[in-house]
C-alpha cells in the first residue's frame, strides 16, 4: 500500500489476519521505531480477565514497557492505542472509541485519552487488539497497517505533511485509489504545534461519505501528540477489511441488537426534547452552564457572562450542517460530531482555504471562548481549526491562554514580555497569534506551550511573579490544565477534578449537578460514595471501547422515577447486556465496577511508581475551590457572605473583603481535606492515597512488582 510505490520501507512484517473472537483478536502489534522491529505479541487470558482492553491494555503494556524513572521523551515511553472488546460493534451508539495511553509530558505520569474516529475498531478488524509503539525514529516515519493484505510497514515520510487536515487529504489522495478504498481507512496524526509544545493532541480520522472528506476526532488531553512527534511519527495508517454488522464476532449478536434498538428508538423519540445532541451536540451545555454560574469566564474567575448567548447552542445549531448522520463510528445515532462546513480560514498559513471545522465541542467553546473572554463564534472556529490541524489540545490551550490573560491583566506580563502580544481577556487576534507561534515554535507561544505548571515556575523565576498568586490562579493539577467547568460551589466536583488519576479532566467524574443543584450528596460519605462509583463507572467505558455520552446525554423518559436516576439504571443494564453479549461472559452491573476498580487502582500504583500519586499530588489550586481575588469575591458577595454567616457563624458586615476571603478559604480548604479522607477510605487507600495491600488483593492485582511499589509507602 506504499503510496505510488515510492516511499522507502524501513521495516516490513507480514501476518495472517486472524478472525475476531468475541471482541478480541488475541494479539498485539508491537512496533519499535528505534530499531525498526515489528512483532506480534499474544494477549493473555490474564490480560483479558483483569484488564479487559482499551485503557486497561494500554496501562498494562506501558507498565511493562517503561522503567521507574522513564520520562515522556525517553525512547522506552510508549504510545498504546486499543479500543476494547466492545469497540467496533455497530448496533449500539458510541461503540467505536479508541483509548490512547502514554507517559504525559505535562504530568510525567500515564495519561489516558478516549477518542472517536475509526482507527481503533479498524485496527482490531485488521487483526490487532492494540498497537504498542516504542522507541524513537531517526527521521520522520509513518506506520502503515494493511489489514487487507496482512502487512505492516514502517516507512520514511519526508513527503507526508505534519498538520492534520493536510494529512487527511494526503491519506485519501495518495493511499486510496478508489472512493470505496477510503471507507475503511483511518489515520492518526498530530501537527506542527504538537512538535513545539507539551500540549499536543492526536487526530483520529474517519471518512465522511457524504462530505467525501476526512473528519477528525481528538485524543486531546495530556500531550500525547507531543510524544507522537517526539517519536518522529507523522502518521499511523490503518486499512481494514470491510466492516460488517458482525465484524466483532460477538457471542450473542441478538442481545446487542436488542439493546441498540432500544437506544436508537429512545434517541429518536426524546433527543429533541432533551439535549438536542443530534442537532447541536455538546454545545447545548454552554447556556446551561452559564445559567448555573458554572461556565468558566476569565480564567475561571466567574461562571457566567452577559455575552454567552453569542456563543451558545442556538448559535452552533445554526452554524452546523443539519440532517447528516454525524456519528464518529457507525451506528451512533446520538450523532454529536457536528461540523461547520465551508469555513474560510482567515489567518496563518492556511488563510483563504475553505475547510471543514470539526466541532466546536462544549469544552472548546468554553475554553478558548468564554474562559478567554472571547465571545466571537468565528474566532472560536479559527482557533478550533488551527488547534486541531496543529495537533494542539483545545482544552489546555484555552485554560493556559486564560491564565496568561489574567497574568497580563495583573501586570505579571506586558507587551515586552509577550513579544508584542496584548494578551488581555477578549483579544482573539492575540490568542490566534499565540497559537501560530506555538506551531512555529517561537516567541511567547513557545513559553506558553509548556503549559500552566511550567509557566508558573517561569513567571516566578523570570518575571518576579508572586508564587502564591500564580499558584492560586493557575488552573492545573498534577501538571494538566483543568477542563472547562467552574467547581467552586461543588466540593464533590473539586474532588472530581483533584482526586483523579490523570489530572483534572471531567471524564472521571462530573458531579456538579448532583452535588450543587440537586443536593443529593449532603454528607462526606455521600460525596465519597459518588467519588467512588462514578469514576469507576466512567472508567469502564474506556476499558471496552465505549463513549460516555450515550449513557447520560439521553435518558429514558421514566428515568427520574428510578431509585438512582443519576446512574441511569436502564442504560447500565444495556451495557451489562452488551458486555455479556460480546464476550459470552455473564456479568452483573457490580462486576463492571470491579473491572474498573482493578484498572483504576493499578493506574494509581503506576502513578506512585513514577513518583506521583500520593496525597500531596491530589492538591488543587484555590481558584478551583473559591474566590482568589477581591474582584471575584465581590462579584458574588451575597453568596459568600451568606456562607460565612450560615456555615461559620461570622458577621460579614464587620469584616473587610480580605478578611472574608481568608475566612472562606480556611473553611473550604479544610472541607477539601476532609473530603480526601472520606474518598481515600471509600476507595480502600491509606490516608496518604496509597491503595492498601488488602485492596490490591481483593482486586487480584497484588502482583509482586505492584506490591513492591506500594510497600514503600505503607
Amino acid at each position, binding site marked *: 500500500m506504499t503510496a505510488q510505490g515510492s516511499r522507502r520501507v524501513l521495516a516490513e512484517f507480514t501476518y495472517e489476519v486472524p478472525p475476531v473472537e468475541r471482541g478480541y483478536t488475541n494479539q498485539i502489534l508491537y512496533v519499535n521505531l528505534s530499531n525498526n522491529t515489528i512483532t506480534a505479541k499474544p494477549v493473555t487470558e490474564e490480560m483479558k480477565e483483569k484488564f479487559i482492553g482499551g485503557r486497561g491494555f494500554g496501562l498494562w503494556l506501558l507498565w511493562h514497557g517503561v522503567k521507574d524513572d522513564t520520562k515522556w521523551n525517553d525512547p522506552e515511553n510508549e504510545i498504546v492505542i486499543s479500543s476494547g472488546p466492545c469497540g467496533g460493534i455497530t448496533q449500539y451508539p458510541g461503540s467505536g472509541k479508541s483509548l490512547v495511553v502514554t507517559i504525559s509530558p505535562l504530568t510525567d505520569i500515564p495519561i489516558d485519552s478516549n477518542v472517536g474516529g475509526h482507527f481503533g475498531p479498524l485496527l482490531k478488524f485488521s487483526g490487532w487488539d492494540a498497537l504498542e509503539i516504542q522507541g524513537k525514529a531517526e527521521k520522520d516515519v509513518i506506520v502503515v497497517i494493511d489489514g487487507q493484505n496482512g502487512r505492516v510497514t514502517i516507512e520514511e515520510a519526508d513527503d507526508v505533511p505534519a498538520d492534520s487536515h493536510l494529512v487527511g487529504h494526503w491519506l485519501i489522495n495518495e493511499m486510496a485509489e478508489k472512493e470505496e478504498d477510503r471507507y475503511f481507512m483511518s489515520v492518526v496524526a498530530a501537527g506542527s504545534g504538537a512538535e513545539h509544545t507539551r500540549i499536543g493532541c492526536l487526530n483520529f480520522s474517519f471518512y465522511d461519505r457524504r462530505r467525501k472528506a476526512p473528519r477528525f476526532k481528538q485524543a486531546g488531553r495530556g500531550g500525547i501528540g507531543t510524544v507522537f512527534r517526539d517519536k518522529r511519527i507523522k502518521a499511523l495508517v490503518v486499512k481494514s477489511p470491510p466492516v460488517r454488522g458482525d465484524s466483532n464476532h460477538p457471542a450473542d449478536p441478538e442481545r446487542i441488537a436488542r439493546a441498540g434498538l432500544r437506544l436508537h*428508538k429512545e434517541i429518536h423519540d426524546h433527543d429533541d426534547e432533551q439535549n438536542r445532541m443530534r442537532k447541536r451536540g455538546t454545545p447545548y451545555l454552554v447556556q446551561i452552564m452559564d445559567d448555573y454560574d458554572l461556565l468558566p469566564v476569565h480564567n475561571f474567575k466567574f461562571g457566567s457572562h452577559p455575552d454567552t448567548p453569542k456563543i451558545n447552542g442556538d448559535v452552533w445549531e445554526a452554524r452546523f450542517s443539519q440532517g447528516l448522520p454525524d456519528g464518529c463510528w457507525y451506528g451512533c445515532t446520538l450523532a454529536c460530531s457536528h461540523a461547520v462546513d465551508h469555513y474560510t480560514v482567515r489567518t496563518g498559513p492556511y488563510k483563504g482555504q475553505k475547510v471543514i471545522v470539526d466541532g466546536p465541542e462544549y469544552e472548546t467553546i468554553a475554553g478558548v471562548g468564554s474562559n478567554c473572554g472571547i465571545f466571537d463564534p468565528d474566532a472560536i472556529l479559527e482557533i478550533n481549526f488551527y488547534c486541531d490541524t496543529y495537533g494542539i489540545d483545545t482544552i489546555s490551550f484555552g485554560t493556559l491562554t486564560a491564565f496568561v490573560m489574567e497574568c497580563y491583566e495583573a501586570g505579571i506580563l506586558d507587551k515586552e514580555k509577550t513579544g508584542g502580544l496584548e494578551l488581555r481577556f477578549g483579544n482573539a487576534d492575540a490568542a490566534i497569534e499565540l497559537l501560530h507561534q506555538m506551531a512555529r515554535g517561537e516567541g511567547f507561544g513557545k513559553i506558553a506551550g509548556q503549559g500552566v505548571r511550567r509557566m508558573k515556575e517561569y513567571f516566578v523565576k523570570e518575571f518576579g511573579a508572586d508564587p502564591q498568586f500564580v499558584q492560586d490562579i493557575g488552573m492545573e493539577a498534577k501538571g494538566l490544565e483543568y477542563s472547562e467547568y467552574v467547581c467552586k460551589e461543588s466540593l464533590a466536583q473539586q474532588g472530581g477534578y483533584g482526586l483523579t488519576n490523570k489530572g483534572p479532566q471531567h471524564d472521571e467524574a462530573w458531579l456538579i449537578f448532583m452535588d450543587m443543584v440537586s443536593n443529593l450528596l449532603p454528607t462526606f460519605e455521600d460525596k465519597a460514595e459518588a467519588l467512588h462509583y462514578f469514576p469507576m463507572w466512567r472508567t469502564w467505558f474506556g476499558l471496552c471501547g465505549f463513549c460516555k455520552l450515550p449513557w447520560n446525554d439521553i435518558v429514558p423518559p421514566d428515568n427520574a422515577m428510578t431509585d438512582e436516576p443519576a446512574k441511569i439504571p436502564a442504560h447500565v443494564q444495556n451495557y451489562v447486556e452488551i458486555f455479556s453479549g460480546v464476550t459470552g461472559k455473564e456479568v452483573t452491573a457490580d462486576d463492571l465496577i470491579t473491572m474498573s476498580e482493578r484498572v483504576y487502582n493499578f493506574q494509581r500504583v503506576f502513578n506512585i511508581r513514577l513518583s506521583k500519586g500520593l496525597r500531596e499530588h491530589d492538591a488543587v489550586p484555590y481558584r478551583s475551590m473559591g474566590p482568589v481575588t477581591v474582584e471575584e469575591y465581590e462579584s458574588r458577595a451575597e453568596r459568600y457572605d451568606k456562607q460565612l454567616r450560615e456555615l461559620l457563624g461570622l458577621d460579614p458586615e464587620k469584616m473587610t473583603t480580605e478578611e472574608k476571603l481568608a475566612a472562606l478559604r480556611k473553611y473550604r480548604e479544610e472541607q477539601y481535606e476532609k473530603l480526601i479522607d472520606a474518598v481515600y477510605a471509600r476507595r480502600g487507600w491509606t490516608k496518604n492515597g496509597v491503595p492498601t495491600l488488602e485492596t490490591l488483593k481483593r482486586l487480584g492485582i497484588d502482583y509482586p512488582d505492584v506490591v513492591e511499589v506500594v510497600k514503600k509507602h505503607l
Partner: protein
Amino acid sequence: MNVLSFDPELCVGCHICEEVCSDTWFKTTDVERSRIRILDEGTGPLQAVFCVQCGECIDVCPTKALYRDRKGIVRLRKKLCVGCLSCVGFCPYGAMFYHPDYLEPFNCIVCGQCVKACPADALSIVEEATPAPTVTEQWETVVG
C-alpha cells in the same frame, strides 16, 4: 412513485400477506420475516405496518446504504450496510424491520406479491408524489 396502500375496512386479518411476503423474500412463512405486519390490538380496526417510502431513514444511514431508486422506492445496498440498525430505530412508522438471522434490515419495496395474494382486496399499490429530496440527496448535488 408507487407505494403500498392498506384499507382497514376490508382487511379480514388472515395474515396471508405476511406469509407471502416472508416466502417471497426469505423462502419461509414467518411473520417475523415479513416486510408487512398486520396488527390486531383488539380494539378498533386492524392496522398495517409497512414502509411508506418517506425516506427519513436515508439521512440516518451512516454508510449511504439506503437510497431512493429511480422509481422512488427506498432500497438497501447490502454491500454497504454495516448492520447498525439506526434505520430500524429511527423509522417513524416502525416499518424497517430487524430479524436476528440477518445482518441487514429490510423494508417493503413494493413488489406487489401481497397485493396479489390478499383475498379481501385490502392491499393495493397507489401512485403518490415523491417526497422532497432528503438532506443526503441534496448533499450529493453539493459535493458531486
